[in-house]
C-alpha cells in the first residue's frame, strides 16, 4: 500500500514536470517582456536601433508577406466561388475574401510569416550574441542588453505587424478581386459593393489589434529563446527552432481567445 502511494506521487511528478516546465518558460517570457517594457521608458532612447529593428521586422518581411497575402486572397476567391456558385451567391465572394482576410487570415498569416523570417532571426542573432559573450560584453560596457537588444525588437514587433497586416489585407483583397472579377467574371460593382456593405471598420480594427498582440508574442518569445541560449552553435539552432515552434503555437492559441473576446 505504501509502495503504491509512493509510485502515485512519482507518476504525478513525472506527468506534471513538462507542465511545470511550460509554466516556468511562460513566466520567464512574461518577466522578460515586462523588463523590456520598463526599459522602454528609461534613457538612453536609441531611436536608430529601434528604426533598424522596424526595418528588419517590417520592410524586410514585406516580400514574403505580400506573396502569402496575394496567394491567400486568390485561393480564397477560387474556393468560395465554387461554393457560392452552387446556390447562385457568387456576388458574396468579395465580402467573404475581405472578411476572412481582415478578421483572420491577414493577421494570422502575416504573424506566421514574420515568425518564420524575423522571429527565427531574432532568436539566432541574440542566441549567437549570448554564446559568443557579446551579451556579457554589453553588461561589461554598462549597457543593459534587455534595453539594447530585447526592447527594440519587441517594440518593432508590436508596431510593424499591424502595418504589414493592413498591407496584406489590401493585397489579399486585390488578389481576390483579380481572380473573382478578371478570371471568374464576377461583376466588379457587385464584388466591391458587397465588401463595402459587409466589412465594418471594426473588423479591420480588431484584426489590427490581433496582429499587434501576435507581434508582441512572436518577438517576446523569440527574444526570450535567444536571450537564454546555452550550448554553443547547437544551442543557437535549437533556440531558433524553438522560437518558431513556440511562437506559432502561441499565435494559434491566443488567436482563439482574442477572436472570442473581440468578435
Amino acid at each position: 500500500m505504501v509502495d503504491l502511494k509512493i509510485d502515485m506521487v512519482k507518476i504525478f511528478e513525472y506527468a506534471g514536470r513538462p507542465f511545470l516546465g511550460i509554466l516556468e518558460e511562460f513566466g520567464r517570457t512574461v518577466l522578460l517582456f515586462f523588463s523590456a517594457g520598463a526599459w522602454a521608458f528609461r534613457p538612453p532612447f536609441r531611436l536608430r536601433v529601434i528604426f533598424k529593428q522596424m526595418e528588419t521586422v517590417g520592410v524586410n518581411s514585406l516580400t514574403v508577406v505580400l506573396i502569402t497575402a496575394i496567394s491567400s486572397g486568390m485561393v480564397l476567391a477560387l474556393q468560395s466561388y465554387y461554393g457560392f456558385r452552387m446556390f447562385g451567391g457568387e456576388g458574396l465572394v468579395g465580402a467573404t475574401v475581405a472578411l476572412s482576410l481582415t478578421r483572420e487570415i491577414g493577421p494570422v498569416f502575416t504573424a506566421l510569416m514574420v515568425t518564420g523570417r524575423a522571429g527565427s532571426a531574432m532568436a539566432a542573432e541574440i542566441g549567437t550574441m549570448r554564446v559568443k559573450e557579446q551579451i556579457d560584453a554589453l553588461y561589461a560596457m554598462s549597457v543593459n542588453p534587455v534595453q539594447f537588444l530585447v526592447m527594440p525588437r519587441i517594440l518593432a514587433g508590436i508596431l510593424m505587424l499591424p502595418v504589414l497586416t493592413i498591407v496584406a489585407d489590401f493585397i489579399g483583397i486585390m488578389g481576390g478581386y483579380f481572380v473573382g472579377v478578371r478570371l471568374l467574371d464576377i461583376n466588379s460593382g457587385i464584388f466591391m459593393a458587397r465588401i463595402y456593405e459587409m466589412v465594418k471598420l471594426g473588423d479591420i480594427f480588431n484584426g489590427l489589434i490581433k496582429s499587434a498582440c501576435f507581434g508582441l508574442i512572436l518577438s517576446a518569445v523569440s527574444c526570450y529563446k535567444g536571450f537564454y541560449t546555452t550550448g554553443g552553435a547547437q544551442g543557437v539552432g535549437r533556440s531558433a527552432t524553438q522560437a518558431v515552434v513556440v511562437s506559432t503555437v502561441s499565435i494559434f492559441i491566443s488567436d482563439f481567445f482574442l477572436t472570442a473576446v473581440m468578435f
Partner: protein
Amino acid sequence: MIRLSGVTKSFGRQRVLDGLDLEIPGEKITVILGQSGSGKSVILKHIIGLMKPDSGEIYINSTDITKLNDRELNEVRKQFGMLFQDAALFDSMTVGENVAFPLREHTRLPKKEVRRIVEEKLEQVGLKGATEKMPSELSGGMRKRAGLARAIALDPKIILFDEPITGLDPIMSDAIDNLIIHTQKYTRATCVVITHNIASTFKIAHNIAMLYEGKIVEFGEPDRIRNSPHAFVQRFIRGEASEKDGIY
C-alpha cells in the same frame, strides 16, 4: 585596488571558488594563473559583476559591488574595460563602430571627436586602417587587438583580459603580450590577466596569483612564484601532470 574576500561560488554541486581571498594592487599587471576549468574566468566575471558570489565580498576601491543594485553596478563598470576570450566584437558592426560603441553610449562627444579617438585607439593596437572592416574579416589576433581597442576606448582605470593569447600563434601571442605591457604603461591602469601560459605570465606580470582548488595558493612577484615551496605551483610551472590530476 581590487579585493576579493571569502568568495565562494558553486555551480550545482561543483564548488568552483572556495572562500577565495585575493588582493590585486592598483596600477600593476596581475596575472591569475590556473588550470583550464579551475575558475579563472569565474573570478574575472565576479570582479566585473557579471556573476554574483554565493558568499563573500568583492571590493572595487572601497565599494563592495556584491551589495550594489544594477544601476549602481553599471556606474562602477564604467571604470572597467574588458577584453573577452574571443574578443566578443559585435558581428553586425564594423571594427570602427565597435570601438566607438562605448564612446557613443557613455559620452556626448561630437562625431568628429569619436572618429578621432577610434582611429587613435586602433593605431595604438596596431590596427590603423581597419576601421571599416567587419569582425568576420579579421584574423584571431586582429580580433583580439580590436577588442582591446574597444576595451580602452573610455580610458578605463581597470582592464580585464580573459585568456588574451589563447588560440594565437607564438608570434602573435608575443605581440599581444607586448601590447598588454605597452597599454598598462600608457594608461597606468590596473590590469588583471587570466591565462594558463607560463611564458606569457612571466613576461608581463608584476604580480602572479596561483589558483588551485578554488583558492589562491600563492601570490607575489614572479620570483616568489618561481621559488614557491607549494608543490602544485612548481608542477604547474614545469608543466608536470600527476596522478592527482586524473590524467596521469
